[in-house]
């Protein structure tokens, strides 16, 4: 029996394997992953399964679903194919979800990191700005921005990003404030590492897990915001988005409810899948937080 402390414990499996094991322990998260994959497949195969413009006339107006195999999910009041709309709408929803989230997280991480790391007056100024944004309701601000910038899909995406960065900024700031006092940051400073390197190479990887989890929430919110805009008729009319479809289906809600219900279900499932993904990521990335 030796007390020597230099013998190593057996090697652990690679991080990805551990990550997958933890993630797959959560059944709901797996379901989320499946739905998410389906949405991605819809978006990718839209051009193959439903060639042609989704906004073109595909059959007689208001064909109910499952009656004509050329338009399996029916057509709306202008004779546009609902299934085609769902396929192409997945593209828009994912695009908006991903890009708006990147914009929001990008701004949020930068501002939060600087405020949290430097503290003092830098923190004060940045946080007052953040609070100014937070006092205006998200959707009102979004409407204003779209009214100013116009309703092209690019501007809508950016605007959604701009209205959603405050929460990640506060979160990153809190993480940075907790982490900057840790000894490994002092250790890096003591080696002569520069501030930028400390922020992005030392602290950021440690602050990332909660942000990744939160990104899924922003993604879901971004999709909802776009749908809400489109529902009000402020979406980009040149693209078939799920929100547009619901907005237009509203007028025939009593006679042909499927026009609004089918894209509605698509939105619900997609947003649900993001929430479930987030839940699973949280379990996998922060195992300590939720021990049962």
């Amino acid at each position, binding site marked *: *029996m*030796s*007390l*020597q*402390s*230099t013998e*190593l*414990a057996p*090697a*652990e499996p690679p991080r990805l394997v551990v990550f997958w094991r933890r993630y797959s322990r959560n059944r709901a998260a797996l379901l989320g992953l499946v739905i998410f994959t389906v949405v991605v497949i819809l978006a990718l195969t839209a051009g193959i399964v439903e060639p042609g413009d989704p906004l073109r006339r595909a059959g007689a107006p208001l064909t109910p679903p499952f009656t004509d195999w050329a338009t399996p999910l029916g057509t709306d009041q202008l004779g546009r194919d609902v299934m085609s709309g769902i396929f192409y709408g997945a593209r828009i929803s994912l695009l908006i979800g991903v890009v708006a989230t990147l914009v929001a997280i990008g701004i949020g991480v930068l501002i939060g990191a600087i405020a949290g790391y430097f503290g003092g007056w830098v923190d004060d100024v940045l946080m007052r700005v953040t609070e100014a944004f937070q006092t205006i309701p998200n959707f009102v601000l979004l409407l204003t921005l779209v009214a100013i910038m116009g309703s092209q899909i690019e501007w809508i995406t950016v605007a959604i990003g701009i209205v959603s960065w405050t929460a990640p900024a506060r979160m990153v700031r809190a993480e940075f404030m907790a982490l900057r006092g*840790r*000894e*490994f940051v*002092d*250790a*890096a*400073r*003591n*080696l*002569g*590492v*520069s501030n930028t*390197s400390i922020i992005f190479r*030392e602290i950021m*990887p*440690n602050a990332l897990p909660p942000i990744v989890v939160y990104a899924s929430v922003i993604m879901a919110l971004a999709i909802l915001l776009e749908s809400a805009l489109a529902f009000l008729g402020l979406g980009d009319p040149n693209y078939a988005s799920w929100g547009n479809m619901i907005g237009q289906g509203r007028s025939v809600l009593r006679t042909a409810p499927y026009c609004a219900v089918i894209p509605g279900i698509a939105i619900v499932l997609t947003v649900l899948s993001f929430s479930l993904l987030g839940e699973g990521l949280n379990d996998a990335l922060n195992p300590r937080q939720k021990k049962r």
Partner: protein
Amino acid sequence: MSQPVLDISGLRIALPKGADRPFALEDLNLTVEPGEIVCLVGESGSGKSLSAGAVMRLLPEPHVHVAAGSIRFMGEDLLAKTPRQMRDIRGRDIAMIFQEPMTALNPQKTVGWQLDEVLRLHTRLGRKARRARALDMLERVQLPDPRSAYNAYPHQVSGGQRQRVMIAMALLLSPKLIIADEPTTALDVTTQLQILKLIRELQVEEQAGILFITHDFGVVAEIADKVAVLRMGQLVEHGPAKTVLNNPQHPYTKALIGAVPALIPPPAKPLSSAPVVLKAEGLRKTFAARGGLLSGKRKAVAAVKDLSFTLRQGETLGVVGESGSGKTTVSRIVTRLLECDSGKVEVDGTDILAASPRELRAMRKHIQMVFQDPMASLNPRKRVVDLIAQGPIVHGTPRKKAHADARRLLELVELSPAAATRFPHEFSGGQRQRIGIARALSMEPKIIVADEPVSALDVSVQAQVLKLLAELRDRLNLSLLFVTHDLRVAAQLCDRIIVMQNGEIVEQGATADVFANPQHPYTQKLLSSIPGRHWTPPVLTTEAA
């Protein structure tokens, strides 16, 4: 012949699947007689705290549960009690003193309220009678002003006083058994001695049995009647304190006791001619407490007042003192992790405190630091090789060479090169500290500032890390500024020591001189407070040493 207060036999506690071993405790047999202090000693992970949890029936069930054996308290089987019966027993018959009194007390309630609660739950006394009894108890634990303490919130009294409050709470109902889980570990030596004395006195008055859990053999020597040594959940040795401490039988006990640093300073080195590598002059640092908008300004705290010292090449200078003495501040100032208010720190004749950011980065090469908590000081998301090579890469060493050097350094600190591609959490505490040392050495510094580098480690690992530090110092001709609260550790490694109190040096000199003949009353008090100072660990030869 009275029956034992506590009789544990064949106790086995199961751990959940995937833990490092199936059972936290295996076949533990232990008795505590009335009026006896039994010390349960072991290193971290030995299962000593879980055994206390089992007696209190406070295990995190169902993951961790009692798999076999019996726990008898005054002859009654505790494991057969219903949760309701257990609630009555806890606090009234069995009391517990925790390690960290700040977290064990409710910060939202006054001390008096919390004492009162115990009485309210377990007695039928009236309000006045309860208050009288609580005040009486606070007096018995020798709190300076029981009345004001009764109305104080936990954060308003000092750490030592909080622990006194905890003891008062534990003893309020004259329990037959007290379980003390590392009750003095979070305290300074001088306070620790007072608390140990207090526990001893009150225990004699009350004739209670105490199960005292600790990792510190000094404390054992101070207080124990009987000792039980746990290793990985197994009882390896037990018996009367004197026998176990002075004549241990089991190799593990021998190794543990052999690792306790003796209070014998190293022979003085002829260093007066060596060049001075680090010179601090007139250092001052005041922490201005930043007042909030509504809370108003708080008083500024002077952490370091006019401090000067020199460190010669190849020398180890110990900075000792209790918490709040400013010793950690000193270590942060000389590495310029903390900006100083005034003063000079010369490294090889250049003032590091006056250096521009650019010069400073170049100078950091010469003065490196080993931190207290090896887990916190290693970035958990970096591989060991990157951690060690980071410094040289920042200073312009090509990546490949830096990595090769890092692997060589791992061997120097006696770790296998296979460790290079692992992440910090895959190592034990001692191994992490070795990585921390390798990182400091990667810059080929002249000076290493070590801030409590072994205080987070188990005794046996502590001894190995200290040995490694001493070897490397001699081999590489390093100078060491060694900050510690542990006088035993200081005695083992330091050539000279400075003793700090409230930000000032009260005494300095060669370690041997200071230990043999302390001049300042504070130094005298510190030295006489070392737990188990009358006990010199027997010189043992073990295969592990």
